[in-house]
Every structure is written in structure tokens, then in C-alpha cells.
């Protein structure tokens, strides 16, 4: 009756974590239920909404379309791990807050992870590149206008920070 459990080690937001999961445990459920990181939201659970997006070795992926056991040994960044080392908001988080790029906030963790990777790869995206970049994340509140603004604002903030350093 008992399902076989697999011992896995993940580095989540820089912290080594160990847990035991059945083969069918989705990474989204592993993060939320096994590791207590409920910032990763689960919307559609079939890859459409993008709420569960996390960074796998820096690349945004759907945690609901990834088995935890598959990513044994890999590095995961969730929304909880996006903040600056001093605990303040990251430029992307700040820009979303300043630009009113969220209302209910359910989709926000997925957007933040997606946009963090987008701006790392393309620090000054055009409007089209922003829309393409966030096309896999659904928001039912904002109408996206302020999300697009926030991505541009985050790009500015990151540019300023680099200019200062």
C-alpha cells in the first residue's frame, strides 16, 4: 500500500533542504507542503496560468509541471528568495509595488520570478519583448498595463543601481 519515497536534496533560496517525496510529488507541492514555502502559488496545475513559476538553476519553469524528484540536487529560487541580501525588496519587487502591478496578488509570485529572469537575460527589453516574456503568466485583475510598466520600471531601477556601484 505504502508508496515508495525518494530521498531528495534541493538548494532552495540558497538553503540546502532534504525531504522524502513520492515520485508523483509535484515540485509546487513539495515547496508548499513539504518545505512550507507557500509563496509559490498553484493556480491551474496544468501549465497555463504561470502562478507556480520558480527559478530552476536560474531558469523560470512551471513547478506544477516538474516532479520534485526530477530536480534532485538542483537549485530552486522561489518568490521568498528574490529579496535582496539585506531583506529589502528586489528591484523587480519594488517596481511591482510602486507601479501598482498587482491587485489580488495571486499571480504575483509567478510574475516576479519570470520577470527577474527576463531582466537578467535582457536588462532593457522593448514593449514587445516584455509582452512576449510575460505571455505565459496570466493576471485576471490588472489588465497587464501596470505589469508592463513595472517591468520597465524594474529595468530602470536595476540600471540605476548598476550606475551607482
Amino acid at each position, binding site marked *: 500500500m505504502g508508496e515508495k519515497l525518494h530521498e531528495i536534496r534541493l538548494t532552495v533560496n540558497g538553503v540546502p533542504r532534504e525531504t522524502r517525496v513520492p515520485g508523483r510529488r509535484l515540485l509546487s507541492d513539495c515547496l508548499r507542503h513539504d518545505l512550507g514555502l507557500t509563496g509559490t502559488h498553484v493556480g491551474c496545475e496544468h501549465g497555463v496560468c504561470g502562478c507556480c513559476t520558480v527559478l530552476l538553476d536560474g531558469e523560470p519553469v512551471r513547478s506544477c509541471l*516538474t516532479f520534485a524528484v526530477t530536480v534532485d540536487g538542483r537549485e530552486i529560487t522561489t518568490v521568498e528568495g528574490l529579496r535582496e541580501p539585506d531583506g529589502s525588496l528586489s528591484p523587480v519587487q519594488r517596481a511591482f509595488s510602486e507601479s501598482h502591478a498587482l491587485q489580488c496578488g495571486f499571480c504575483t509570485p509567478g510574475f516576479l520570478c519570470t520577470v527577474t529572469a527576463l531582466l537578467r537575460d535582457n536588462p532593457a527589453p522593448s514593449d514587445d519583448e516584455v509582452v512576449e516574456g510575460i505571455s505565459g503568466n496570466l493576471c485576471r485583475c490588472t489588465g497587464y498595463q501596470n505589469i508592463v510598466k513595472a517591468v520597465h520600471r524594474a529595468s530602470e531601477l536595476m540600471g540605476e543601481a548598476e550606475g551607482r556601484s
Partner: protein
Amino acid sequence: MKPSAFDYHAPRDVGEALEILAATAPHGKVLAGGQSLIPLLNMRLAAPAHLVDINRVPELDTIEAGGAGVRVGALARHAAVERSDSAARAQPLLRTALRHVAHPVIRNRGTVVGSLVHADPSAEMPAVLVVLGGSVRLARHGGGERDVPAADFFTGPMESAAEPGELAVSAFFPALTPRTGTAFAEVARRHGDYAVAGVAAVVSLDDDLRIRSARVACVSVGPRPAPLDVTEECGGRPAATVDWPSVARAVSLRVDPGDDIHATAGYRRHLTGVLAERALRVAAGEAADG
């Protein structure tokens, strides 16, 4: 919305993967990127007893671009193939079409070969493989490998020639030949969604810039992406004087779309004609420049 239980296998090399697939056939299913399989598992539309996860088989994570074409290993992600300049140089249709495959985040995980084996008639990569006349390489424990031409690989909606116990180890996309152009056009409700209709086109010209061959493969308008040869409809004319609307009409009359909640069969047929004209014109233009 959670998968049912399965026995999980994580082979470290192709030999081990084939052994497990042979031992568990027909109850084993291969997991690569999982971007099509895991939704099916989550919704319990599929419930295999064994899952063979090939994500730890590095020898399958390959993209080899050469003079003959591009061989894509079973673990090469859409995003990696899309980013590969050598693959785009050898066969530009790969990158062109990959940009229509779902969203960037899905492409980070999904694999080209997985998309082929999934054999969804609404997917882009099967049509690309068919229009280019590529092939899929299947391996089986103790049985060596066999190459299945694209035209025989897709046998029906979500059905391919891959048999239980077989692993699709790679796919081959032939290179662009001189005086040949390719194009891809599709219409989706939202960018990144499944296409309501789509057309992949390849046009070759002779030394006098007359149409030597013209082929299309259509997305979402039949049980499988069938190659359609419209060379005859082009009448051996120079690309600039071909009656493209009538060639496109011929394409639209040879597809077999169905009705569903997204579009009627008639609308899909109409779109296929419109997209075929666009794709063929672009491909012919590129052939003339190439």
C-alpha cells in the same frame, strides 16, 4: 489534479533506460520535459504504472548541427534549440517555428523530441519535421535503432510509430539547401496558445528562379500533420508570377479540419488558405534571396 501513483525510474544512461522500458512495456512512459505529459498526468488523462525519467541521461542532451542538417537529442529543450545559432544556420525553420511553441517558460523545460513523440496535431514541431522530410530515431533494448521518416512517424492524433519499449533518442531535421526558403505562419487565440491553424512551408527554386518544389504541412487541421506537395499547382512558374491565392486554395481544400469550441471546420479551412499563401510567399521570397 494530482497524478496517480507510479513507479519512478531514473536511468543514468540510454542502455539502462532501454532496459527499464523493455522490462516495463507496455506500462512504461518516458518523461523528458514533461510539459505535455505532466498536464495529462495531473488531469489523470494518463496514468502509466511506470515513469522512466530521462532527465539524468546527459548523452541525450545534444544538438548537432552539420552540413546535412540538425540532429536534436531527446533531452534538448526547445529553448536550447531556439538559441542555437548553428542549428538556426543549418535549418532556419527550427528557430522560426520554435518561437510559436507555447511560452518562453514552457520552452525552458519542454523538449523538441518530446513534442514530436507527443504527436499533437496542434503542435508546431511535428509539422516542421514533416515539411522538411526529417526523421525520428527510435531505440529498443537489444534491438538496435531504427529511423522512421516523418511521413510515417505520425500515425494519428497523439499517436506515433514509437512502440511500447522504444525510446525516441533523437530527431533529424534536414538542412536548408541552396535556393530554398522556409516559413511558418499560425493564428492562435492568444500568443503561445495552440494554433487554431498553422502552416509550415518550404519552397525551392531552380537556377532560373522558377518553382522547383513547394511543400507545406498544416497544423490543427487534421488528425496528423500530413505533407502536402503543391509543386504542380505552382506550374513551374517564376516565384513572382505564381498564382499564390489559387495554390493556397488548393492547400485549404486538401486539409481535413474538424469543429471544436475554438473554431469551426470552415473557419480553420479558410485560415489554412490565408496562412498557406503567406507562408508560401515568404518561403519563395527567401528562396530567391538564398
